[in-house]
């Protein structure tokens, strides 16, 4: 049972394991936060604006009297959505294209890699911004844009891995026994290049949370009434001289989530490849 072995190794990576628990909690929140939150995250109460943290409002209230704790919990939704969509697009588009390119080689591979290089030479946030701007400003379009800018990395990774395994004896054997290219790519190459791709997905997940927060901060991601940590920081920024405390909790939420994604990725890398030195 390779999977169980991997899980055991992951358990030994304490930090990665804690991160995994945290990420699972975040996924749970993204699904059920609206039932858990103590207050309606969009309910305004102008009689209690910008309160410091206390027993009722654990993280205080914002400039419209909304409960910051409830809003931070709700913000998990936008973050998890962004993270998932942003890795799903490259997994579905980038990985197959990378495998095909690496397996076929030749002119297809040449053209394909030039395109990948070209997209990679764009500053990522700028391209995401440009795509969001063209598609129209919304969280959904921001997530698509982030997914698109991640796609070339996955394609390049999948291609590189495919180049390594396509001359392996088991691939040759499958070829001789008459398997078609599609079968070989699906049944023999994909399963054997999956580990580095999953590790990359974990790092991209946390990067997506970061980029989504940046776009929402600029007003080009989640739109009200959807709550997002980046959007909360945009408000906090406009209140920075009045109530600097408002920026504290959404920022910490982003930081911890990104760290968790990175630690989990590090842990996975070690779990997949015990020979790897820890960084």
């Amino acid at each position, binding site marked *: 049972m390779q999977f169980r072995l991997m899980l055991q190794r992951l358990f030994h990576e304490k930090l990665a394991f804690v991160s995994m628990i945290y990420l699972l909690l975040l996924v749970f929140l993204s699904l059920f936060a609206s039932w858990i939150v103590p207050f309606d995250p969009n309910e305004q109460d102008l009689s209690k604006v910008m309160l410091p943290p206390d027993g009722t409002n654990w993280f205080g209230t914002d400039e419209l009297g909304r409960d910051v704790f409830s809003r931070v919990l709700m913000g998990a939704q936008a973050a998890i959505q962004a993270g998932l969509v942003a890795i799903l697009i490259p997994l579905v588009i980038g990985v197959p294209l990378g495998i095909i390119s690496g397996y076929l080689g030749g002119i297809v591979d040449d053209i394909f890699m030039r395109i990948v290089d070209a997209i990679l030479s764009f500053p990522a946030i700028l391209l995401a911004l440009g795509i969001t701007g063209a598609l129209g400003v919304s969280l959904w379009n921001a997530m698509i844009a982030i997914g698109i800018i991640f796609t070339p990395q996955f394609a390049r990774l999948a291609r590189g891995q495919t180049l390594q395994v396509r001359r392996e004896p088991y691939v040759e054997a499958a070829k001789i026994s008459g398997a078609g290219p599609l079968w070989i790519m699906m049944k023999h190459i994909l399963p054997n290049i999956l580990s580095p791709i999953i590790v990359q997905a974990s790092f991209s997940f*946390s990067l997506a949370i970061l980029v989504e927060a940046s776009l929402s901060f600029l007003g080009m991601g989640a739109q009200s009434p959807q709550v997002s940590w980046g959007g909360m920081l945009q408000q906090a920024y406009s209140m920075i001289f009045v109530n600097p405390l408002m920026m504290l909790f959404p920022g910490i939420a982003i930081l911890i989530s990104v760290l968790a994604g990175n630690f989990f990725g590090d842990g996975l890398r070690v779990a997949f490849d015990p020979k790897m030195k820890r960084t």
Partner: protein
Amino acid sequence: MYVIPMLIVTTLIVFSLILIIPGDPALALLGDNATEEKLALLRSQLGLDQPILIQYWNWLTNAVQGDLGRSLFTGEIVSDAVFSRLGVTFQLVIASILFSFVFGMTFAIASVIKPNSWMDYLSRFVGTLGTAIPNFWLAMLLIVLFSVNLGWLPATGFISISESPTGFLQSIILPSICLGAFGAAQITRQLRSSLLEVLESDYIRTAYSKGLLLWPVIWKHALRNSLLPVITTTGLLFGNMLGATVVIETVFAIPGMGQLAVNSILQRDFPMLQGVVLVMVVLVLVINFVTDVLYSVLDPRIEFK
């Protein structure tokens, strides 16, 4: 030449940004109240009434001659607007690269001279934190600390180095820390691991055994061989930082290309956006080229193709 196909594909991507606007771009840009004449005018102005490849060709040949069109919003000539802001962004990015490099090197060296000391832990902590902290949040924290509470540095604004060198320094410190934090962390991690690797090698042991002290060994022997991968990282950081200026210039109200990009999206000013993206990506390509050349100069084993 590798650069030419890259330029063709990248310009094609920049150009096609206008193609992914859902529906009629002219209608999307002008809004529902636009008259039919205005729509027709904009379509011919943008060349939307022609086949796509012709549109691309016209746009490209104009762009090569420095004509990126006019702003839909202010009527300003795009190339003028972009180039007048290029200097600002350039000063910011160079300052940030310097910050990343100096801090990255300091932390990495501090980390390897005494493994598992507090300096080592601090460096690893900074290296981990720097890649995860949202740069605009760091900016807000620093503004609260240094501008609001201590009153040492201005919260927003930019003064060019040619105007007043001291004013420049004051206005650039916070933005370059925020823009450079990620880079500093990257360089710390990269240099730390390559230094650790090099310090294990035979020639370092030889250097020690002939009586050299720690510092000369690090400066003269280890660093020289560890810095090569850092050059590549720094080259990549350049593009990364150019992109991140959209956030940092917005937070600190710096009138550079990043701010121009954000404004042109908010105003749906497409020629302007294309102009900014095009100039930035060409800059990145130039820097990549320079990095490659530099690499082959520094390491004679690598031949520049």
